[in-house]
């Protein structure tokens, strides 16, 4: 965990209201794991005051990228930051996906993304592609409409099998990505060594967790909660689990789906 003033290499709009920012921060990217996050001071002033959490979207030597959606004043301020400026960043924080325990086995990785929840799954997919020898990828991406379906090309490049769902039917399956997931998984009689990784809105994650449980697949979910500190000091980002309150920032943001009380 470090506090650095990372140089903004680029900060570009990738879709309506969606941006990708690339930062030069060798000390952070070196230690970063997929599923971990950074706390970003989006603007220099005192309003908006608090840092905002963002999961790593892409981790490279010397650099990392964040994919974000403009939701409120923090992300709006971030979207206005210019190339060459320095961004105050703390990271890497939290516990990421368990990407390495699968290393020795053939793995059938099923990634499920809802909306901007696709952000950390690309970092995970890139790590899995490079570290797991025998791997089969399926990635399910869902969004409201086709404009908000992100990163399709990036996943294709990794050789992933792509399934897309748009709620308005403008592309792929018409409906929720979880319905598409259910349909595809039940079409196959058995899927060996499958593991589900998901990130997206809470209702979607709950549905994914239910599907994984019925199929007896292990399932990891990346949760989101309002945070003040990001380092386990304020106890603001509590989530209910089978063993009491856990902090999304320190105990997560990635949890075993079965531990969460939805």
């Amino acid at each position: 965990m470090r506090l650095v003033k990372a140089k903004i290499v680029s900060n570009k709009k990738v879709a309506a209201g969606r941006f990708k920012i690339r930062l030069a921060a060798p000390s952070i990217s070196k230690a970063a794991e997929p599923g971990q996050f950074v706390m970003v001071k989006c603007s220099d002033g005192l309003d908006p005051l608090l840092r905002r959490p963002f999961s790593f979207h892409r981790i490279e030597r010397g650099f990392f990228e964040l994919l974000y959606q403009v939701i409120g004043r923090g992300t709006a301020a971030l979207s206005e930051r210019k190339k060459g400026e320095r961004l105050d960043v703390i990271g890497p924080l939290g516990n990421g996906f368990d990407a390495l325990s699968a290393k020795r086995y053939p793995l059938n990785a099923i990634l499920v993304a809802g909306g901007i929840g696709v952000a950390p799954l690309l970092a995970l997919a890139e790590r899995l592609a490079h570290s797991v020898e025998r791997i089969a990828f399926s990635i399910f991406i869902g969004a409201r409409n086709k404009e908000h379906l992100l990163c399709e090309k990036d996943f294709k490049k990794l050789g992933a099998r792509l399934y897309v769902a748009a709620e308005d039917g403008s592309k792929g399956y018409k409906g929720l990505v979880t319905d598409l997931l259910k349909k595809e998984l039940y079409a196959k009689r058995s899927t060996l060594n499958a593991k589900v990784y998901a990130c997206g809105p809470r209702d979607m994650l709950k549905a994914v967790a239910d599907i994984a449980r019925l199929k007896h697949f292990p399932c990891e979910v990346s949760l989101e909660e309002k945070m003040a500190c990001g380092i386990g000091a304020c106890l603001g980002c509590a989530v209910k689990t089978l063993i009491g309150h856990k902090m999304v920032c320190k105990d997560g943001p990635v949890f075993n789906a079965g531990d969460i009380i939805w």
Partner: protein
Amino acid sequence: MVRPKTKRRETDLSVKIGRIKMKNPVMVASGTFGYGKEYEGLMDISRLGAIVTKTITNDPRSGNPPPRVVETPFGMLNSIGLENDGVDAFIEEKLPYLRKLGIPVIVSIGGEEIRDFARLAKRLNRVSGVAGLEINISCPNIRDQRRKTRSRRLFSQDKNLTFKIVKSVRRATGLTIITKLTPNVTDVAEIARAAQDGGSDALSLVNTYMGMALDISTRKPLLGNVAGGLSGPAIKPLALKAVWDVYNHVSIPIIGMGGIVEINDVLEFLICGATAVALGTTNFVYPNKSIEIIDGLKYYIKSNKLKSLKPLIGSLKT
């Protein structure tokens, strides 16, 4: 023979709160600094004047339902609800690390019954590494705000209860006692005097201001417990007023807090009567800010040719 010139005087930022000697007046406020370890690697914790822990209670508390924090203009609301693992776990798991820091450790204690405080004081009296206790009788988040009935008052909204609790702790321990007060009262000086009369060595001013935030589209509160405590730069003018109001009515030192972000904020609190200060919400945003402020205060003393910060305390010209 050339004699060495008289050694340049080291800047003296030291202050005394009760029997606690601090090398500088900059502390971190309870609930904003965990148990210290959380900030390891982000700053040099051992340079702080003192550390005040997250409030601990006799028994573990699971805290309030999420969401627990929400940002508001120039500040934030929280309703954590004193989540902690209880005093035994604190002594076993958190205190060993704090002890090693080499700075005064002030343990914040909380409870729902009057007797809880003396019980905690007795328990902490017996362990090494605790320099003082901060009596938290001002947390706005230990009641269920979802009920529409009139909520019970906080202990520190009642001068008799304040006196009673402080006195019970005073009887139970020889440790330095700091009483943290709520500003959500008509006359904070009256409560402050009650704490002083009960035997408190110092006062922490202020705890958070009660507030709310909501979503007009759903008509739901943004905090799981409906209301919470407001902190951050938004409350600084209010906190300064509370410190000034109390300063003229007590003889014990005041630790000023509420929205401190820069060194000038610290100086303002000192001028209003604070002997020491604590950073709170700022720790979340700029973890190293307390250390930067300590360096800033050293520079301030030097460049203003002062011996210490003492001449500033309560020096408001009215």
